[in-house]
């Protein structure tokens, strides 16, 4: 999920404050598919991701595009408005109770020596790695991927060379949305979904992306791991309820000392 945010910001330079809400929608979509068709969330990733690609593309092309050149607070406001609409529409459609999926492997864990590894989390991690590698390969080796990177590096230059920047931006947003969809489907196996779930995750995604490096895919993965481990350790050694404090402290440190993140490039 942080991957999606990183990609969107790295290329389109729009901070997607509705990111968490988009993931919540993906989670609801997965529950609906599960309830209606008994489709396992990890399989549901495919149709949900496809739908999200279209949704992301349209959102960028139709709504967000004019905002790229506008000041950040305008962008922020726009996405806050979108977030409000999304959250409360979900409240209206799905009601305030939590929805979830019940799959057999949800509560299983593997025993590796003294360690207990949670099966569902392992699968989610696997999905994340697959998605990340796929995205990485796309950006490295495909023509479109290279074109997108060109836009990110040099907007004007890209236009001069004849790239359809608007289309490429929309494509990127669509890809970011795909990441969100995958994350949502995986997430719903771990966490129940309620309408106000989004904002906490948006914040978390930002922390991960900043720490790992904006625009760097490896950074997003690394950041995710780092934040996860540090929160766990902080929870163990300091008071567990203060573990988020630790992550924010880390964020502040990174912003000050190495704002491009661990693996990011200095723009």
């Amino acid at each position, binding site marked *: 999920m942080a991957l999606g945010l990183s990609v969107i*910001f790295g290329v389109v330079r729009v901070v997607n404050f509705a990111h968490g809400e988009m993931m919540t929608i993906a989670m609801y979509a997965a529950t609906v598919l599960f309830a209606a068709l008994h489709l396992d969330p990890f399989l549901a990733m495919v149709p949900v991701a496809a739908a999200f690609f279209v949704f992301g593309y349209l959102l960028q092309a139709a709504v967000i595009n004019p905002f790229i050149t506008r000041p950040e607070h305008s962008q*922020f406001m726009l996405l806050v408005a979108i977030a409000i609409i999304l959250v*409360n529409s979900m409240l209206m459609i799905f009601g305030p109770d939590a929805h979830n999926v019940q799959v057999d492997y949800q509560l299983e864990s593997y025993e590796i020596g003294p360690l207990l590894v949670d099966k569902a989390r392992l699968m989610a991690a696997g999905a994340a790695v697959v998605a990340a590698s796929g995205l990485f390969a796309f950006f490295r080796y495909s023509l479109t991927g290279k074109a997108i990177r060109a836009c990110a590096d040099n907007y004007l230059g890209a236009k001069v060379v004849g790239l359809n920047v608007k289309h490429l931006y929309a494509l990127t947003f669509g890809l970011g949305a795909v990441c969100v969809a995958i994350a949502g489907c995986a997430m719903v196996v771990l966490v129940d979904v309620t309408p106000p779930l989004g904002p906490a995750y948006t914040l978390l995604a930002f922390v991960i992306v900043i720490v790992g490096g904006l625009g760097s895919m490896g950074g997003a993965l690394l950041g995710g791991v780092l934040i996860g481990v540090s929160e766990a350790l902080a929870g163990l050694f300091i008071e567990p309820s203060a573990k988020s404090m630790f992550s924010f402290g880390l964020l502040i440190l990174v912003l000050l000392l190495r704002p491009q993140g661990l693996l990011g490039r200095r723009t």
Partner: protein
Amino acid sequence: MNRRSIALAILAALLIALPAFAGNYALSVATLILYFAYTGQAWNVMMGFAGQLSLGHALYVGVGAYAAGALFYHLGIGPWAGLWLAIALCVALGLVIGFLAFRFSISGVYFALLTIAFAEFTRIGFDHLDFTGGPGGMFLRVAQRDAWDLANFRGPPLMYYYAMLALTIGAFALCASLLKSRAGYYWQAIRENEEAAQALGINSFRWKMLAVAISSAMTAVSGVFFAFYYNNLFPEQIFHISRSIEIILGPVIGGVGTLFGPILGAGVLTLLSEGITESLAALGWEIPGIKQVFYGVVLFAVVIFLPHGIWPPLAKRLKL
């Protein structure tokens, strides 16, 4: 006297006379509008004047509120003394954040995220501070609520309304004079092109810090008001990011960087919110969440069609 001054004077007169023909409900809404107008104006100094997007402004409201609140709760010291402690703490906090940000050249969205991080950090921190009541909250005792006791800031809702009105008018006047002063011109220069301004010899660091200090000081006052109006403080509520977002809604919708924007924005949004609730109630549509959807849609429309806020095009129309 030009058109603007006359219009402002009329508005001020209307607001002063409002309690005479407004019911209690309208008065409470009006007080809320003024609260957001004032706090929005304070935020506007940092954003509109110095160009720094602060998304964690609830930090100053919270610290200001808790400072004055704690003083009253533990030592029985009234709000006027607490005010100075609140301002001192918030300015110090603002300067620290400003220093860290400007020294390390953090701006734009990174600065915004920095402010969010500080606010969140403080929120969780206060949750663990027993001295200020922790997550259980701090409850301030209300001695009386009938007579106007300005020394202890206790009295009927009418007193709070006028206090907030005075603060809002004061803030407006302060910002107006700031804009016309040397500080105002330097800020404009820095906002338009910082490097060029620096080339001209303007110490952008110093002037940006000034904006941050003024903004945080003003917001601290807001916090003190909040403490003595609501009389209970919970870290989860007062430092929450939704509060920070509420603060900036007014100025952004009204018009960032303008003098009247925050006031207009606060008014429009609060009236919109209450209006939608009333209309939905009248229609009998009691579906939870529907009001916020309408609200979000209007917000969305304004942001798309009026990118600079409502005030600039409106001012042009009214020839103000």
